[in-house]
């Protein structure tokens, strides 16, 4: 491959500042804004529902009212799951980018989502009556498989996992795994079930998904906060981190496990939602600086907001049909990816 490697370059000096004040206001104001977007998400949809009805459905639930049922059984779990998944994907992206010092590292590019979809196809083909929990476990295994292949490709090659090589390896792994998923789905006649995950969306989410996702997200979130400081050190480079007495391998293993936990759970419920894990960490770093103790929680909140908003938009593009939310996040995310690609020339 031609071109120079940008992997060894140190992060730009001018960026090494931390802005706790901005971060704190994102944490507080962002949470409020997230709540607001969730309310809007609950309010807007195919069925016309008044704000007062939401309140009533919570405090004086009337099981015979369709509006109340829609709100309680469809829209509220949907808004919660969207927020959790957006947060999980954004956190995973932050951890991956910080750990690998690779600006393009993110769940969808590293083959995590493609791997999870592939395993899901196998599970649906061989064990069609799997429970939601079993499917989630398959999702973890697949996420691990996809990431594993991309990492192996990157670490075996001599120049290491440069941004370009990562993007190419991710593209190739995604192409192979999704081709295999398609072949499986054609042969076992489960194309419709598999395409649900492939398109990416939270439209048929129920409370059971909230119950499955929330504990996993919480565990992942707590571990992510615990290792956040180590990731900041790791982001200075392996040698520096080791020089500062850090057990880099241990931190990397824990971080990778957290990423698999968060994305595996997210993908098993919502399918391939791209670009959140790529875009949000960059925006967050731009806003709050280089300390991952701030970056990780802030990106979780911003990721939650982005997915809730994207999900609301996806319902408004072509009502009453739903546009897969993955396409909305792609259209928001691609211009940003192109911006990063153009920056590549001066070294990321």
């Amino acid at each position, binding site marked *: *491959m*031609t*071109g120079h490697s940008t992997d060894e370059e140190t992060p730009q000096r001018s960026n090494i500042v931390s802005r706790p004040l901005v971060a704190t206001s994102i944490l507080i104001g962002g949470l409020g804004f997230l709540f607001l977007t969730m309310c809007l998400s609950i309010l807007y949809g195919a069925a016309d529902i008044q704000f007062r009805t939401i309140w009533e459905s919570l405090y004086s639930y009337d099981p015979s009212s369709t509006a109340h049922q829609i709100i309680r059984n469809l829209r509220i779990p949907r808004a919660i799951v969207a927020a959790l998944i957006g947060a999980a994907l954004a956190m995973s992206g932050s951890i991956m980018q910080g750990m690998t010092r690779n600006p*393009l590292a993110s769940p969808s590019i590293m083959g995590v989502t493609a791997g999870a979809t592939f395993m899901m196809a196998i599970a649906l083909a061989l064990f069609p009556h799997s429970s939601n929990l079993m499917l989630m476990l398959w999702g973890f295994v697949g996420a691990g498989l996809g990431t594993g*292949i991309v990492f*192996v*490709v990157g670490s*075996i*090659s*001599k*120049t290491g996992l440069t*941004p*370009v*090589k990562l*993007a*190419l*390896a991710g*593209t*190739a*792994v995604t*192409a*192979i795994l999704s*081709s*295999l998923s*398609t*072949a499986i789905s*054609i*042969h076992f006649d489960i194309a419709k079930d598999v395409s649900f995950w492939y*398109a990416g969306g939270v439209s048929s989410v129920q409370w059971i998904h909230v119950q499955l996702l929330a504990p996993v997200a919480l565990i992942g979130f707590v571990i992510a906060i615990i290792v956040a400081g180590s990731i900041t050190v790791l982001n200075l480079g392996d040698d520096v981190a080791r020089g500062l007495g850090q057990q880099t391998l241990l931190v990397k293993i824990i971080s990778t496990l957290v990423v698999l936990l968060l994305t595996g759970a997210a993908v098993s419920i919502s399918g391939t939602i*791209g*670009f959140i894990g790529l875009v949000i960490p960059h925006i967050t770093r731009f806003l709050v600086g280089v300390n991952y103790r701030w970056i990780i929680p802030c990106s979780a909140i911003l990721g939650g907001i982005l997915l809730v908003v994207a999900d609301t938009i996806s319902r408004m*593009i*072509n009502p009453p*049909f739903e*546009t*897969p939310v*993955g*396409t909305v996040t*792609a*259209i928001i*995310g*691609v211009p940003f*990816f*192109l911006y*990063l*690609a*153009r920056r*590549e*020339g001066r070294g990321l």
Partner: protein
Amino acid sequence: MKRRTKTWIVAITLILAIIVTLLISLNMGVIRITPSQVFQTLLGNGSEQNALVLFQFRLPRMVIALLIGAGMAVSGAILQSVTHNELADPGIIGINAGAGFFVVLYIYYFQDSIVQLGGTLSVYILPLFALGGSLVAAILIYVISWKNGVNPIRLILVGIGINSMFAALIIIFQLKMDPDDFTRATVWLTGDISGTDWSYVLALLPWILLFVPFAFYKAKSLDTLHLGDDVAKGLGTRVEGERSLLLFIAVALAGACVAVGGGIAFIGLVIPHLARKLVGATHQTILPISALMGALLLVLADTIGRNLLAPSEIPVGIVVSVIGGGYFIYLLMKS
């Protein structure tokens, strides 16, 4: 002269391999026809059923596979040399997806009006739309990655981004279609040549006959461009002019092939590599050998796809992705 002999040996071996694969492939399928029956049928002495299966279903499909394989491989070989990047491929950098998006737009907006004009006409208009889409994608990639010249790394990254964008647009429009058009578009996008008849061959043939020989004719320019812009300028080449002409040939070939065969990726990436390994450096040999190898790979992949999980067929695009993607990952690990 030794290299020349080697090239001829490789070329003849490839042609023989193609003929053998064709015979095996003609023979295999739900209705089995033995090689001798194939010969008899080709000579006009076969049973009516055999003639129908061979001439209406299997032969046009194989000819299309040969044409698309050759076209995609030549397109990839040109792209790789022009961009100085051995990992360039019309599928990876979004040229296929651009063509795909325009075809989806065409099915969405014009399908009905064209059918009223006469059904077969759409077979000939489709390649034009696909070509338009691949040109738009190519121009977008070129313009966005331009910053004091086009750096190959930037080009690939921008291409991957453009690819995702078109993929998202495709899904949005596909979901607005009625179920029939949706299925048509889906089958088409996976890279499938199962519904081929002779009208598709006639639609694609002019493009291949025009642009593949034209590429062979331009082999010398590719050699000089491959040396790098400065050297090429020193040798008196109009670098930008030649580059855009060659890019146009590559994009036109990819666009026409995608229009007929759908989103078949990785041929343009893998084949030129193998060709370069086998017959080495000059494009006068790389291009024709790529064309033969591409044709062989696609006929093989289609035969596998038709028979591996019979009676259900795997679209050829899937088989190529798995074979080609695997080889691509191997290349990445070695680079």
